[in-house]
């Protein structure tokens, strides 16, 4: 599927914002210059407690609420997976 330039741009912006929230709130000791969107945050040291802090920070940043079925490990595994979840929620809202 071909995406419009607009959609692609919006996605990248979302991912950059998510990356910044992860950097500030996920409590990871990793080198963020070397982190990419697919980096496994749990393998990088995110605990269940820091994942909760990250979830709250993301809800604030994007003015969303994650429904209970999205509060799972697979959703918060990486910037990519978080972006897909947030995009879904944003589309629902529109």
């Amino acid at each position, binding site marked *: 599927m071909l995406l419009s330039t607009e959609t692609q741009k919006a996605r990248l912006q979302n991912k950059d914002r998510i990356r910044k929230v992860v950097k500030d709130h996920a409590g990871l000791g990793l080198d963020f210059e070397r982190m990419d969107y697919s980096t496994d945050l749990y393998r990088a040291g995110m605990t*269940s407690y820091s994942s909760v802090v990250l979830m709250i920070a993301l809800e604030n940043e994007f003015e969303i609420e994650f429904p209970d*079925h999205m509060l799972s*490990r697979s959703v918060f595994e990486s910037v990519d997976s978080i972006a897909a979840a947030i995009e879904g929620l944003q589309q629902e809202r529109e």
Partner: protein
Amino acid sequence: MSVAQGALAFQELTAPEAFHEALATAAQHAAEVDRHSRFPSEAVAALRSAGAFGWGVPQAYGGAGARIDKLSEATFELSRACAATGMIFAMHQIQIASIARHLGDSLWFKNYLGRVVDEQRLIASATSEVGVGGDMRKSLAAVQPADGPDNLIHFEKRASTISYGAHADDLLTTLRRSPDADSGDQVLVLTHLADMDTKPTNEWDTLGMRGTCSPGFVVRATCLTDQVLPAAFAAIAAETMVPYSHILWAHVWLGIATDAFSRAQNFVRAQARQNPGTIPPTAHRLAELSVRMAGFRALVHEAMDEYMSLADEDRPGLSTIGYAVRINNLKIAASEVAVEACQAALRICGFLGYGNGGPYSVCRQLRDAHSAALMIANDRLLATNAALLLVYREGK
């Protein structure tokens, strides 16, 4: 349910008399096992003869393919007779499920499960570690490359407790995936105790659960890379090890409390027989305890039913925050009500309950029940749930 009726429920897994024999043996030696803080070797031998260590192994690998409901029932019946025996059976089945549900395409582990059935091997676990503050989801010790061929690895771990570590055949150990992995990036490694170097670091002389013989150990092993379970421990813990542990442990505690209840009931009946035509005052306390026991059973059975419905059809559902909150709630609630029930039984039986022997003694039951709040400290689970409830909206 009598011992004989209890055994009948297991006829699809073994000859009824074989499990009956294990229950009777466990009951016969329970007091002595407790007194001397020794391994219940007679009951464990009877379980071996019944083939019980293969019950949780899937039929594809030669086992009985018992699901968690049957294993829970067996745990419950054994724990009414001897809680240490029930806990050993439960812990072994937790390790079996953790392997069977996460072995992927591993030929080594498929072959191993066949050996468990044929040789009735008993598996212990080394998930605890000195220095991680009781957090099973963190490891310090790591899988290290061994000297020699590429397919050899090595590890050394200081486990703060290994239940029946000196009496098991095999050990399932949590370790960091590699020397440079994060403390939460763990794997499970299965090794044979006969090939390992193990040294107890303290004595197991405790208030209760004395027969589980669970001192700390330093364990060292060199093994094949094939002996590392392919799945990440994070998934094994969320989908299998934590729910299996909390559900089977809850059945141990329900068994202990049910044993205490039965003793209290026998005491009340004996009192009633001494004064025919009157209801003894302790009967009212027993009626109150009966209400608590009904709540206890409902709590445990509901958690088991939910796991049964998610275990195969909705594995991702087991990794949600909501499920983590609920399975932690089961552990906290069951561990607390078990002690309260034994205490209530003690009040009913009075000094005959307080004595260390005789049919109305509930001392061992009360002491054993006190271990429940400590096996993964309730305060740790409450702290976890406190954080999770900041995002999870409880509606179920």
